[in-house]
């Protein structure tokens, strides 16, 4: 039996797809979401067992190539200096994220005007502000109002405790007179809307068994389903189909039994992340769109931006109990966020304090860095690191470069025979200089905090969490893929709401901004439904 046509078809149930679906359901249109992954169960997350670290680097790895689960597709990353990371399930990568929740700053939307690099966005912080606020309320955000680095906003809940590690690092920043502030975190410091407060399990990156960390399967989706949104899991979209006029008219997807299904829709919305979205567009070729859907600009899959990360670690004499508490959520610093050309690079980066690793990962990372040997000296070297280290990450702003791309691999396919994405990414000279600067400043901060020894990973390869820029937003159809409302220039009933639409990356985690954009796009559709498909 053919599937009934729907009003709105959302592809992808992660951070942006969830927010969009929840909002667009207000229209009363029928809304269907297809996701290639399953619903997750909190009782299955690794922190329920003693083998939590073992599972965290296996079936719960952030890399789809390591996991290789049925819901995953392979990514050819051989030509990339950073490994793309993601999770495929209802909730998407919010299942395995750290839930660090900064917003892009107002200046991040106008880098060309301010610094002569990148492009200005067609929208600004003020446009998104109401949607940041809605999103904070739905996700449940802990933080401290009044950070001078941002326009004033009030997080939903009080900040998470810094713990010994955060207190030590904050005192280091204070000694140096550098900006720092408790992080906005999508983790509950108090019970909130039926979810329990964080109990400091530690391994946020393998799913939160407590449910205190916001992932959209437990925030947006229950509310969206109450509004009538239908979810079909285990469904992998192969291509978006078009009608004779070149408008999107639905998708072809493989159902959980591997059968090819057709689903018609009046509006198609892509929420598949900065790799999955261009992959699907490029795989949706037709006579009307021979270079892939919405690709008359030739920019689909181009301008891929990550956030190149450096990790700087200090060893302390005192015990810090660093693995306890939300791993990525403690404090941030925007001391080096804005352009200062005397530093030798343009734009900047933020620091984030992170808590420490569990024992197995302490030993493994110590081995990789030559600090924890095997044999008779193992235990002593391990004890020097474990519970005695604190780290900071530097999240540097990546500048868009058309040579950094997502394309279709000519040979590699997923389990359904759909071409896999191939990522080509080279670090810019500007990013290298920024990372080097961050390593030195990070060591300075850790030393000020009391570290007796410091060391660094100047570029973390396994750091491609943030997949941005591959279907950028803009007013000019020749230099962008979607307009300022997330609507494809070439296909008026096709919308993109994930990180693909980012014009610049900023130097902070992007999820808060991705979700605000998804809500903003949905709001625009709701307000302009009568004229949505009129010519520009």
């Amino acid at each position, binding site marked *: 039996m053919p599937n009934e046509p729907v009003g709105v078809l959302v592809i992808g149930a992660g951070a942006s797809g969830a927010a969009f679906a929840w909002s667009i359901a207000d229209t009363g249109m029928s809304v269907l979401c297809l996701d290639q992954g399953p619903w997750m169960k909190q009782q299955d997350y690794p922190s329920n067992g003693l083998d939590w670290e073992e599972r965290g680097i296996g079936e719960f790895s952030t890399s789809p190539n390591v996991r290789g689960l049925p819901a995953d597709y392979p990514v050819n990353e051989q030509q990339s200096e950073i490994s793309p990371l993601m999770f495929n399930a209802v909730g998407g990568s919010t299942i395995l994220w750290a839930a660090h929740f900064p917003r892009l700053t107002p200046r991040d939307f106008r880098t060309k005007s301010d610094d002569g690099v990148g492009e200005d966005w067609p929208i600004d912080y003020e446009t998104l502000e109401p949607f940041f606020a809605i999103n904070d309320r739905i996700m449940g955000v802990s933080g401290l109002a009044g950070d001078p680095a941002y326009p004033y906003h009030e997080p939903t809940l009080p900040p998470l405790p810094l713990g010994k590690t955060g*207190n030590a690092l904050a005192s280091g920043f204070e000694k140096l007179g550098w900006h720092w502030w*408790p992080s906005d975190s999508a983790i509950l410091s108090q019970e909130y809307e039926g979810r329990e407060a964080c109990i400091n399990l530690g391994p946020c990156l393998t799913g939160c*068994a407590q449910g205190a960390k916001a992932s959209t399967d437990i925030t947006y989706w229950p509310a969206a389903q109450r509004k009538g949104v239908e979810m079909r899991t285990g469904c992998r979209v192969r291509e978006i189909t078009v009608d004779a006029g070149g408008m999107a008219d639905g998708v072809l997807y493989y159902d959980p039994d591997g059968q090819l299904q057709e689903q018609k829709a009046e509006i198609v919305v892509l929420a598949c992340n900065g790799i999955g979205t261009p992959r699907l567009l490029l795989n949706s070729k037709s006579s009307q769109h021979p270079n892939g859907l919405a690709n008359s600009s030739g920019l689909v899959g181009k301008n891929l931006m990550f956030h190149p990360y450096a990790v700087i670690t200090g060893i302390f004499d005192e015990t810090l109990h660093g693995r306890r508490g939300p791993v990525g959520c403690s404090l941030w610093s925007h001391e080096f966020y804005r352009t200062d050309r005397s530093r030798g690079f343009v734009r900047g980066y933020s620091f984030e304090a992170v808590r420490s690793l569990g024992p197995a990962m302490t030993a493994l990372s110590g081995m990789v860095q030559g600090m924890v040997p*095997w044999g008779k000296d193992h235990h002593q070297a391990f004890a020097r690191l474990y519970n005695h280290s604190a780290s900071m990450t530097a999240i540097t702003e990546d500048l868009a470069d058309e040579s950094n791309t997502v394309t279709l691999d000519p040979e590699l396919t997923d389990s359904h025979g759909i071409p896999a994405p191939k990522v080509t990414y080279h670090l810019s000279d500007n990013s290298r200089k920024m990372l080097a600067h961050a390593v030195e400043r990070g060591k300075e901060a850790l030393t000020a905090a009391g570290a007796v020894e410091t060391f660094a990973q100047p570029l973390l390869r396994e750091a491609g969490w943030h997949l941005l820029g591959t279907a950028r937003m803009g007013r000019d159809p020749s230099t962008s893929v979607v307009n300022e409302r997330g609507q494809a220039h070439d296909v008026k009933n096709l919308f993109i709401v994930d990180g693909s639409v980012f014009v610049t990356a900023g130097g902070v985690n992007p999820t808060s901004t991705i979700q605000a954009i998804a809500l903003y796009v949905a709001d625009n559709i709701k307000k302009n439904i009568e004229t949505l498909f009129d010519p520009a």
Partner: protein
Amino acid sequence: MTETPSVLNDHDFMKALLNLVIPPSESGELPGAGALDLEASVAAGLQADPLLGPMVEAGALAVREAALSQDPDGLPAMAPQDGTTVLEAQVASHPFLIMGLLRYLYPAYYQQPQVLEGIGEPPRPPFPEGFEVEPTDPKLLEILQARRKA
């Protein structure tokens, strides 16, 4: 024709090898990895790993043969210092032996209740009890209150 059993399934040899890689601590609080019956799970992990598994297996085979050339009873019969010398000699020509082995051994070792207690951790999973975390230093909060943007 019978298939030759993998060296990774030679339990006596693997116990001895694991005990060289993670020996007991001097204080005796932490057991050696060879005393914890981890060899089967480590071998299973390696045998499912198409990249590291073959490299570790080749290295382990070389270690076993080198040990047998020195002692007819092989690595399990050798004193730790002598076994370490044999292992070190093979690591040079099998650079991924230790790294590959530890990829599976460390996660297996550091989840054992005896080991967790030995490093000062409660021998339980993080959930459902969780952990206490020290609150934010009130002096730091006072500083921030004064710095808040209205």
